[in-house]
């Protein structure tokens, strides 16, 4: 049997960038970059997804300096800035290396300079008006048009990754789950899969089923919420109310099925704490049908409302090229025409013959992102219909003891499609304890794309553009 987990392949410091570039040229896709302390040194690791599964490469920095891969992989921009702020790595070739996680007082250390006739600044947050997570946006504006926006997140940085270090692999999952309520299942499954890959444990078909079911329930309430949020973004109260009501019904369904409205604590490593009995599954199935029926009706009203569509169309456009370059993931990427969904290749979950949703017109604007979610609601409903129908809906599965010997120099990688997009969890462990956990969520991947899509639009349209991406702050801040 092969050794479980992914080997951490060492790369000489002067070949770091060329190796990363080579992996991408061979069809690999950038997943994440993070730093880790190794004795006295700091090493940089990068994960890629390829035809042969995930690859993890590492290079030890030379007194804290590493080659930047941003010139060849722009999607790693935030990752490098974070590694710099948290681990002091200087990335050669990434200039200026602006602060991201750190919050310097000096504006010039973190914003892009804007010159020209009469540009002014609009600073919003960290506390927003209404019930919104905390984060700060710095807009550079001429008249009503956004020239550029710098995002300063990490106000909610709780140091979850660091706090998880030194914990047993089975309990570290709490840190992944509490990173974000709206993506609790996705983050936990990514974590569980990373541990299982490290331990060489393959989820049984029953375990795969419950997890898929829970993931789709999470997607359902999130997508309904996000369509409602886009309606709120243009002040279309009836649409917002209708979709909020639908979302609430899914929360109640979650409560009835799992005992928690946000499905907290339903995912564990190599077992399933969620117990779903057959009668509850049958009831849930009927309820999903009625929710879907009402959602379709509400959606038609949104779709055929001329003034709503007038506000959605052509706003906050993200081109396919930009989505590729910036490494956009999830519904936002698919709305720009990128046919990628981590569900189409999801070992350990049950998505037979899954096809990513695609629109006839992938314009990458607000309308496309909202339309795509509506399409995905239908797909999720169909999946739930299947998952809740077959009697194999499992009861709690007894923990299967896996080979707990973890080979040194290996890491576990879990990849899950969350409601916002591909979420990656990379774990390193020694003697059964976590030495490094890195969680790169779909939200984290997409914030730079949001900033890019906002440029050139009207400032009053920003809330709408923001809501069409509907990214979590807590997922990114960790």
């Amino acid at each position, binding site marked *: 049997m092969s050794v479980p987990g992914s080997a951490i392949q060492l790369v000489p410091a002067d070949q770091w960038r060329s190796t990363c570039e080579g992996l991408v040229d061979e069809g690999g896709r950038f997943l994440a970059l993070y730093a880790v302390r190794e004795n006295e040194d700091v090493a940089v690791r990068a994960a890629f997804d390829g035809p042969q599964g995930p690859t993890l490469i590492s290079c030890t920095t030379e007194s804290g300096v590493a080659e930047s891969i941003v010139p060849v992989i722009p999607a790693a921009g935030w990752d490098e800035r974070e590694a710099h702020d948290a681990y002091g790595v200087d990335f050669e070739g990434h200039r200026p290396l602006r602060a991201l996680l750190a*919050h310097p007082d000096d504006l010039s250390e973190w914003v892009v300079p804007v010159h020209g006739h009469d540009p002014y600044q609009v600073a919003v947050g960290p506390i927003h008006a209404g019930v919104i*997570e*905390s984060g700060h946006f710095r807009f550079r504006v001429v008249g009503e048009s956004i020239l550029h926006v710098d995002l300063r997140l990490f106000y909610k940085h709780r140091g979850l990754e660091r706090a998880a270090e030194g914990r047993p692999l089975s309990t570290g999952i709490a840190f992944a789950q509490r990173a974000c309520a*709206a993506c609790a299942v996705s983050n936990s499954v990514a974590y569980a899969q990373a541990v299982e890959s490290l331990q060489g444990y393959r989820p049984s078909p029953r375990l795969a089923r419950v997890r898929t079911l829970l993931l789709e329930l999470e997607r359902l309430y999130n997508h309904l919420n996000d369509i409602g949020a886009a309606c709120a973004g243009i002040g279309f109260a009836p649409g917002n109310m209708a979709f*909020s*009501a639908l979302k609430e019904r899914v*929360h109640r369904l979650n409560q009835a099925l799992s005992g928690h*409205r*946000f499905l907290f604590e339903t995912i564990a490593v190599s077992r399933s704490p969620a117990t779903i009995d057959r009668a509850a599954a049958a009831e849930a199935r009927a309820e999903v049908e009625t929710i879907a029926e009402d959602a379709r009706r509400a959606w038609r009203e949104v779709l055929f409302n001329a003034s709503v569509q007038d506000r959605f169309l052509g706003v906050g456009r993200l081109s396919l090229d930009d989505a590729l370059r910036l490494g956009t993931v999830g519904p936002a990427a698919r709305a720009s025409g990128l046919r990628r969904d981590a569900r189409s290749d999801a070992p350990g979950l049950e998505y037979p013959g899954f096809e990513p949703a695609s629109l006839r017109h992938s314009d990458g604007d607000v309308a496309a992102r909202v339309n795509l979610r509506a399409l995905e609601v239908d797909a999720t409903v169909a999946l739930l219909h299947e998952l809740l129908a077959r009697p194999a809906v499992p009861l709690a599965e007894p923990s299967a003891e896996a080979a707990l010997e973890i080979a040194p120099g290996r890491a576990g990688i879990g990849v899950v499609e969350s409601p916002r997009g591909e979420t990656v969890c990379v774990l390193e462990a020694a003697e059964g304890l976590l030495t490094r956990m890195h969680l790169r969520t779909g939200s984290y991947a997409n914030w730079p794309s949001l900033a890019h899509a906002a440029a050139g639009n009207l400032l009053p349209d920003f809330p709408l553009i923001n809501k069409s991406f509907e990214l979590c702050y807590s997922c990114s801040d960790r």
Partner: protein
Amino acid sequence: MFVLLRELQRLRRQIGLRPPGRSGSLAVRHVDAGSCNGCEHELGACFGPHYDAGRFGLSVAASPRHADALLVSGTVTTRMASPLRTAYESMPEPRWVIALGDCALGLTFLGDETELAGPVETLLPVDVFIPGCPPQPEAIAKGLLEAMDQSRGAKLGRRRLHL
């Protein structure tokens, strides 16, 4: 749109929302001081169509200067401690502080201690605690109404000034 409005009417009939049966109002300023977003979702639901906290005179204010109560969710991170204090200091007296969720109450300690400033109570005087992870919308509405009851009849000067 008319279909949607009709749906809402139907929903209201189905839910059978009881009339408030009390008078008064409370404008709440919400500050997320480092939550996982669960408390925000439930707070949103509390003001959404099923629970409709607005009918009890509860509202979410867009500025601390318009607020009677500060509603804080999340374990306060070191980075949110100062904006939180600024929000509190911007409020007119008399003012109330409500801690929302187990994190804000200091019941969960998820995070690295160097990044956390501590539960809300260690930074601001808390009047009402709403436990839960996240607290359900009914529990939030109850907590807010308790603050509203406390505020009724309270006069400036009867409370300590926390500046």
